[in-house]
């Protein structure tokens, strides 16, 4: 539960960074609602504030959904510290925070229905903008296994796996946490210790930022601990990459995995090059319908949280993932075909493709088969 409130605050802060006056407006426009519920707020102290801000801010910029999400991210609690000090009612605010507690629950009760929306906005905002925190969090959380602050771990993942769904990350976290601890236990069982110091679990190397616990029977001098931390980091990342690169789910072993990744990146780069060559031969129209590209369903945030990508029933781009994951390398070259067909079919069904004759040009022997 504490985790949730942290997220809410984080999301709210970032949202505040985006549009501070907007946030304050949202927070203050939430007042009248609460004012009805709680007699405390019907005091005259609030009125000048409300009118002052809404008058000054011209508060109509918000859609109601936005308002709801902001309110939900912080059911009354964190709103107030974010208000600009010049808003005029400093004395009024001074009395606010302690009395917010009953109030916050009230607000929470109001907005239960929009819980998901609020969280998603907060999370998406955070996912899109957490790159600044990259180094900050990286040092502090990577070394803590098992009882890791999963929120921070989510953030490093959010920016390193920027396009991954937040849901996927969350679902992976408990898995990874347990995997990490399992791995560690296996490692300590199979590893031969250099110094046989037993159960020295309190030694934390002073020169590391990361506090690492030496498990029983493992070497505890600073070098090997640092080594281990690094190795854990690397295997963490490799695990994430494993889910990105299609067909790597069954591979165990770092070297083979890395090979797969290298091949995949190379093939992607080659395909990009091929496509750009093709692009050089066509005349791009002035009005490219970006929405049509986006409508191809590849950018739907849904359903990326399946641990095995093969279980994806949705069409479009997502539909290509099961094709790839069950096939071997050479099938990368046939990726465009299956993508196009499935995308076009979904498009046609949705009525986006007005010209049915275009569909015939994308037969399996169509032009877009890359000839590499």
């Amino acid at each position, binding site marked *: 539960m504490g985790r949730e409130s942290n997220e809410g605050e984080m999301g709210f802060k970032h949202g505040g960074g985006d549009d501070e006056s907007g946030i304050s407006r949202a927070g203050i426009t939430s007042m009248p609602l609460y004012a009805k519920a709680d007699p405390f707020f019907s005091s005259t102290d609030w009125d000048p504030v409300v009118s002052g801000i809404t008058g000054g801010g011209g508060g109509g910029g918000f859609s109601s959904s*936005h308002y709801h*999400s902001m309110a939900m991210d912080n059911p009354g609690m964190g709103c107030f510290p974010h208000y600009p000090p010049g808003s005029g009612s400093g004395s009024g605010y001074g009395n606010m925070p302690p009395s917010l507690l009953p109030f916050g629950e009230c607000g929470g009760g109001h907005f239960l229905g929009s819980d*998901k*929306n609020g*969280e*998603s*906005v907060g*999370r*998406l905002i955070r996912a*899109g903008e957490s*790159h600044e925190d990259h180094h900050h969090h990286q040092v502090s959380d*990577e070394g803590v296994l098992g009882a890791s602050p999963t929120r921070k771990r989510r953030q*490093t993942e959010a920016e*390193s*796996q*920027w*396009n*991954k769904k937040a*849901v996927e990350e*969350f*679902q992976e976290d408990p898995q990874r946490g347990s995997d990490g601890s399992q791995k560690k236990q296996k490692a300590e069982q199979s590893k031969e210790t250099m110094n046989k110091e037993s159960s020295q679990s309190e030694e934390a190397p002073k020169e590391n930022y990361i506090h690492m616990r030496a498990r029983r029977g493992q070497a505890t001098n600073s070098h090997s601990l640092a080594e281990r931390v690094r190795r854990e*980091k*690397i295997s963490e*990342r490799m695990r994430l*990459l494993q889910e*990105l*690169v299609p067909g790597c789910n069954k591979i165990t072993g770092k*070297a083979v995995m*890395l090979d797969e*990744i*290298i091949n995949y*990146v*190379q093939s*992607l*780069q080659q395909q*990009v*090059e091929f*496509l*750009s*060559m093709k*692009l*050089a031969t*066509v005349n*791009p129209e002035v009005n*490219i*319908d*970006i929405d*049509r*590209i986006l409508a*191809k369903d*590849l*950018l*739907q*945030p*849904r359903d990326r*949280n399946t641990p095995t990508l093969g279980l994806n029933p949705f069409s479009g781009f997502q539909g290509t993932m099961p094709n790839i994951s069950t096939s071997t390398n050479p099938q990368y070259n046939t990726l465009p075909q299956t*993508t196009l067909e499935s995308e076009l079919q979904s498009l046609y069904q949705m009525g986006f493709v007005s010209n049915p004759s275009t569909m015939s040009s*994308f037969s399996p022997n169509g*032009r*877009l088969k890359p000839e590499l």
Partner: protein
Amino acid sequence: MNKRQRVFSLQPNKSPKAVFARRYASHLVPALNKININKTSSQVNHKSFEQTVKHEVDMALALSAQEFAWSRFLQHKLLSSVHEDPSESSKILERSNYKQDDEEGGGEIKKRLKELQKLLPGGEEMNMDEMLGEIGSYIVCLELQMLVLKSLVQDNTS
């Protein structure tokens, strides 16, 4: 707990993928239009035109993903060398063939990590775990780039 975290964005177009795709298309299309307007007929089939297009393609990628270190490296590289060698990717392939199995054990992994580093723009200036993190985003952006390019090509060939 997991159920609660299965969220949908309020506006589907705000998802990071959509944001990237939008940005990418909005960078690439005007650049391509500009090239096409300025090109002479003699240039059309010449290799330099393709190079220019590839340059813009890569540039659009770098500009659309500013959050990542690799995009900044890519940008610098593109800006500094305007006339890039289009056979760079083949160079990468050659390099990977040179490295044979002369080390064992951890060396193999290190060798592959180094190769991966070379694939990523700016990878050689990063340390290993940073590089591994950046590779993830690079892969996803490459995939999205491919999709946008594909749709551009197919929308314009009829």
